[in-house]
Structure formats: C-alpha cells, structure tokens
C-alpha cells in the first residue's frame, strides 16, 4: 500500500525535500541517516516471521528495546508487524527483553 502511494509521483518530491532538510540540520548519528525507505517494502517482505531471530535482531539494538521507526525508517504497517514478531520471539527466548 505504501508503495502505491509513493509511486504516484507527488510524494517523491516531498521526500526529496525532507532529505535536503536533514542535510541542513548538520551531521546526525551517521548509521541510519540515509535510510529513509522501509527495508521491508524495499525487500518486498510480506510476512515478518517471529521465528527468524537473525532477521529481527537489528531492530532490537543495544538495550534490546525495539528500534523506533523514526530511526529505522520502517513504515507504519511493517513496524506493527515487526512489533508483533519481536514480542513473540521474546516469549520464546529467541530475542532478549533487555541486555543487562
């Protein structure tokens, strides 16, 4: 759905504008600066599997909190699915609740 919206053209210029804005804002923490597109949309992931801990792990960094989508760039729909998957994986001790 998000893909459809983006391909309508108008939205493209808007996102380019915001990218320029981020540049003006000075150097931010480098790692995720460029990542503005949802990884799952780009890779065409339709099902986020709670059993695939290796895939989920980058989204629970450092203190094992779920990475907010303002940083990861994940779209709302996929963030919701990701959240469910992470919570299930935690119940099965495939992912940590916190790393202490």
């Amino acid at each position: 759905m998000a893909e459809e919206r983006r391909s309508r053209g108008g939205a493209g210029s808007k996102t380019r504008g915001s990218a320029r804005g981020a540049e003006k804002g000075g150097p931010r923490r480098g790692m995720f600066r460029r990542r503005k597109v949802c990884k799952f949309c780009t890779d065409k992931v339709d099902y986020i599997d709670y059993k695939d801990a290796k895939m989920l792990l980058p989204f629970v960094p450092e203190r094992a909190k779920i990475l907010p989508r303002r940083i990861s760039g994940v779209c709302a729909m996929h963030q919701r699915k990701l959240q469910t998957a992470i919570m299930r994986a935690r119940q099965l001790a495939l992912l940590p609740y916190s790393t202490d």
Partner: protein
Amino acid sequence: MSQVRQYELVYILSPDATDQEVADLHTQIEAIITRYQGELVKTENWGRRKLAFRIGKHREGTYVLEVFKGTGELTKELDRRLKVIDSVIRHLCVRVDEDLRLAERTRARRDAETQRRIARGLPVGGRSRRSDDDGGDDEPTDRAEV
C-alpha cells in the same frame, strides 16, 4: 462448533530432556491433534539452542515447532497439556493462517502489477537495490514515468 485455523506451536524442552522424551512428547502432541480432528502439517526439531535469557535455571533448551490445522478447542487442550508437563519450559501457540493469507494476497497483487507494467512496456520498479549513498528516495523508474 469452532472454525478450523492454522496454528504454529513452538515449545522449548529442558536441555535435560532425552531424545526419547522429545520424540515421546511429539507423539503425544500428534495424538491430541488427531483426537480433536486436527491435522499436523509440519514438524521441525530445531535442536538445542541457547536461550536469549534464562528461563528458571535453564540457559538453553530444545526447540520444536509443530504446524497444524485445528479448532480453538484443540489449541486450548494443547495449551493445558503443555503447561503441566515439567520438561516443557516454555511454549507459544499462534494463529498464522490470516497473516499468511494476507501476505499471499499482497504478493499476488504485486505480481499482477508487475505483469501489467511489463504488458504496457513500463519500467518495473523495485528490483534495483540502490547503494546507500544515493541521496534520492524514490524509485528512479517512477520519475521516468512522469
């Protein structure tokens, strides 16, 4: 009468459980599924794995996945049984049919869109994985269309 759904059940056995005990539990689970007119679709033994955190005194456990079709009554019975088995240190049963169906529909729709674009001679977007230093956000193919 409740509806038949597809579920995934994952349970973790204590690392002390022998191969025989793991096999016996699977047989038990299968028998319950059959008794409730369910159907075992797939079973996977993931073997012994390190747990992401301690459960009780355990730091690792043997993971087993059972994919099955059945009713809510069946899942309730499995849940009840797994709770009282001492060698099972954790289990989780989730319904997956709806999510899988949704994923399949999304995929089918995207494939249809790709076919449509090919038929109309339009560039097909998405497949190109752009490098990270590409400042642009949108698929270049979309701009070409305008």
